């Protein structure tokens, strides 16, 4: 078979690239298809955008600290708050969740990689291309200014004549492709590649929540894809989807956007729920209370999240019946969320709780999200919402769920899995400073916004006059925002200090937290091949059950050390997917296509050429290096054929190495 392989080594046939070989240095990071490295790339990139989005937040708070603020003009202010929202939602929280999903999901199901490693790299590079494209709007000096929800007709050509909203529409379109590819990939991975014995209801809750999120993405992203296309066609090709003068429905955008947008908020929060569902049992030294309820409430949230979108539109005139229906469905969705909160509390109840930094952040999520959830329930009462809508009360609410819920959970995950990823712990003392600064700053910033909102301060205003009683709490909130910033800096310092210390300190050991889920079977940091051999899963919390048993009196006793249970990562004969240039080449083409749509179609030529070249290069490229005897099937439409190498590595004799050259 090897002669066929050489014959068809396709990079060769195109003659531009050969298969990359490096697994060190920058070249490795560009071409890697390793889910762990891609996870780290996602995390690092998201933290970079987090810094940008955070600076935008500080600018907003500087402007609003005093009445008649003069830090930003009204126009710049609109751009800053729009980009703050877009950045934090699409370029920070979603990719941070993707970072955890990429790194941990294959480990938690006992797999060596995701189902389609090159596609995984592709989704990261496309996300990066989309993020850079969006922020390019700052450099061009025409950043989007229509809010993160970009209500048309306000964002149509008549009211937003600049290029800003085109950057928004195309940039989100590009990041949407990334989310969609990633979602398909992870769904196939979870459904097809679980370790022997791991039934769906032996999967860790984090994996479950990520699976639910991927299904939400799978079905929500195409809806905003439609909305963004329609907006783009309206703005650039003279379509009439959002032009009321021509008889268009001014609510169409809102419906399309929020049919995507409400599942989107669960896309933001569920990964964090998953993370703390791993952290809380570990640090309470108890199994998660009501595992099936946790899973089913996550699924229920996933389903019900589709039936509540119009609660964002109570004051838009959708009529009393719609308002009543969505009001009731919104109240209902609080039930599964409440189930989760009670289960976390019941997990902690009676446990021997250790308040390490991950646990502190996890408790922060439970308490802060409860506040955010309760203010959310107040929105479900349409008469109350009519008062609250478009005020700072709403701003307070969604920051309590997204910052207090999603972001704090992600920080819990950082501290919890840092040793898994980097082989050393983050410093506890700095970690506690990080937590307390963030939680205090957070409550100082967003707590008073409830009051400001109820006093009538509108969202999205660039300044306010003195004398309305807004001065004190605004100044208070601005001080809080800077305390959050200090907390984030402390985190960065912690990362650097801990890395430095780790050079001399002894390695972290196999099981720093006395953890429960299967990702800890592999040593820290995770070796390139993840697992030496398959793990047989017999129960939920398999890792814990291998360490503990019962004595004759039925008491829990330790029966094995982590060293006895864990693998040592010494396997050398594992077959890993080979790196590839094509994902980054393909992704690099997309922004050019975007610029082409906005400025002159000529830009589309190099962009399209890159994309086409990458697709065909990809298809003709064997999944594995020709040296690694192996091939795979392929199919069309998406350049997606990328079966994981390891499971079919041994049957090269039977497989042809040629790819199906399909679209």
């Amino acid at each position, binding site marked *: 078979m090897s002669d066929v392989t050489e014959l068809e080594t396709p990079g060769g046939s195109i003659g531009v690239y050969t298969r990359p070989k490096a697994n060190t240095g920058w070249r490795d990071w560009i071409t890697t298809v390793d889910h762990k490295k891609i996870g780290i790339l996602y995390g690092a990139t998201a933290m970079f955008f987090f810094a940008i989005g955070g600076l935008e937040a500080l600018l907003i708070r500087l402007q609003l600290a005093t009445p008649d603020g003069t830090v930003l003009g009204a126009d710049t202010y609109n751009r800053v708050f729009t980009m703050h929202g877009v950045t934090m939602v699409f370029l920070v929280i979603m990719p941070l969740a993707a970072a955890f999903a990429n790194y941990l999901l294959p480990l938690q199901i006992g797999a060596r990689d995701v*189902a389609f490693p090159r596609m995984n790299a592709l989704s990261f590079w496309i996300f990066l291309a989309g993020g850079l494209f969006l922020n390019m709007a700052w450099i061009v000096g025409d950043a989007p200014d229509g809010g993160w929800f970009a209500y048309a007709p306000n964002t149509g050509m008549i009211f937003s004549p600049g290029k800003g909203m085109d950057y928004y529409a195309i940039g989100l379109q590009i990041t949407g492709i990334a989310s969609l590819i990633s979602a398909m990939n992870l769904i*196939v991975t979870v459904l*097809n590649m679980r370790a022997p014995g791991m039934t769906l209801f032996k999967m860790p809750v984090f994996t479950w929540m990520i699976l639910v999120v991927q299904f939400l993405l799978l079905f929500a992203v195409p809806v905003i894809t439609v909305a963004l296309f329609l907006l783009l066609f309206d703005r650039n090709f003279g379509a009439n989807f959002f032009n009321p003068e021509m008889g*268009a429905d001014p609510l169409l955008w809102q419906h399309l956007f929020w*049919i995507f947008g409400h599942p989107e908020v669960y896309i933001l929060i569920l990964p964090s729920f998953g993370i703390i569902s791993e952290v809380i049992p570990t640090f309470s030294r108890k199994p998660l209370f009501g595992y099936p309820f946790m899973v089913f409430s996550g699924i229920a949230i996933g389903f019900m999240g589709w039936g509540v979108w119009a609660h964002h539109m109570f004051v838009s005139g959708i009529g009393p019946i719609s308002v009543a229906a969505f009001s009731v469905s919104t109240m209902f969705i609080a039930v599964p969320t409440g189930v989760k909160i009670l289960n976390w509390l019941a997990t902690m109840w009676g446990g021997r709780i250790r308040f390490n930094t991950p646990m502190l952040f996890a408790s922060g999520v439970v308490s802060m999200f409860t506040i955010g959830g309760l203010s959310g329930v107040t929105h479900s009462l349409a008469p109350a919402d009519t008062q609250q809508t478009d005020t700072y009360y709403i701003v307070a609410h969604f920051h309590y769920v997204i910052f207090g819920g999603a972001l704090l959970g992600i920080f819990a995950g950082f501290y919890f899995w840092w040793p898994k990823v980097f082989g050393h712990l983050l410093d506890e003392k700095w970690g506690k400073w990080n937590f307390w600064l963030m939680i205090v700053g957070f409550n100082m910033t967003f707590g008073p916004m409830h009051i400001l909102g109820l006093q009538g301060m509108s969202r999205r205003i660039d300044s306010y006059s003195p004398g309305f009683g807004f001065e004190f709490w605004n100044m208070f909130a601005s001080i809080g925002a800077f305390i959050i910033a200090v907390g984030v800096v402390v985190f960065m310092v912690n990362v650097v200090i801990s890395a430095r210390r780790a050079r001399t300190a002894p390695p972290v050991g196999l099981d720093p937290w006395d953890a429960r889920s299967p990702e800890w079977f592999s040593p820290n940091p995770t070796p390139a091949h993840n697992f030496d051999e398959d793990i047989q899963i017999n129960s939920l919390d398999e890792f814990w059950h291998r360490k503990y048993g019962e004595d004759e009196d039925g008491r829990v006793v330790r029966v094995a050390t982590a060293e006895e249970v864990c693998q040592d990562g010494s396997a050398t004969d594992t077959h890993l997917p080979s790196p590839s240039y094509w994902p980054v080449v393909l992704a690099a083409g997309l922004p050019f296509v975007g610029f082409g749509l906005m400025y002159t179609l000529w830009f589309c030529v190099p962009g399209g050429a890159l994309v086409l070249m990458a697709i065909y290069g990809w298809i003709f490229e064997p999944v594995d290096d020709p040296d690694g005897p192996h091939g795979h099937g392929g*199919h069309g439409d998406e350049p997606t054929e990328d079966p994981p190498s390891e499971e079919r590595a041994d049957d090269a004799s*039977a497989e042809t190495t040629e790819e*199906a050259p399909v679209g």
Partner: protein
Amino acid sequence: MRPPRPLRRPPLADTAAVSHGHGTGTGLSDNKLLMWVFLGSECLLFGGLISTYLIYRSRFGDGPAPGDIFDIPFTSVSSFVLLMSSLTMVLALSALQRGDIRNNRIWLLTTALLGSLFIGGQVYEFTTFVREGLGYSTSPFSSAFFTLTGFHGVHVSLGILMLMSLLISSLRGTLTTERSETVEIVGLYWHFVDVVWIFIFTVIYLVPSPTS
């Protein structure tokens, strides 16, 4: 503590096993499952476009109304052509599964030709409409109509591209019975696009349209 375990998906003896997804959690191969998942996502894409059309079908302003401009007999014929291409797609797959390479090529080519005929019909229909005064910017109805059917047309065109790629692959001698799953997966996409057209055809043409 740890008895040695076999590799997660045991070494597969033959490609037929790979094609049929033995050793995977669902029993479907990764590639096929990926296509199913992707098609699930596509449902929502067309769902959004069809909903938009339904909202706008009676908002034709001063432009031509849908009921006045549609040529239902013509579109019925081109729809029939597209649906027949699903039949030939099935024939292509079954030929390959039997090892009948020659018929496989014939049916792949026929499917691509029928698809192209449909696209040709769509181009003719669009140009006729434009000549009769229904431009892309004429009304919300016209924008929604051209966008929905245009998106479907792009999907059919991508399908034709895949079919032609399969054909080239076959002519190079690499599309063999063992690889019939690739044809099956392209077939899934092709049938999906046809099924979507049944919905679009019903919603746009068969449901009585408003006239001016």
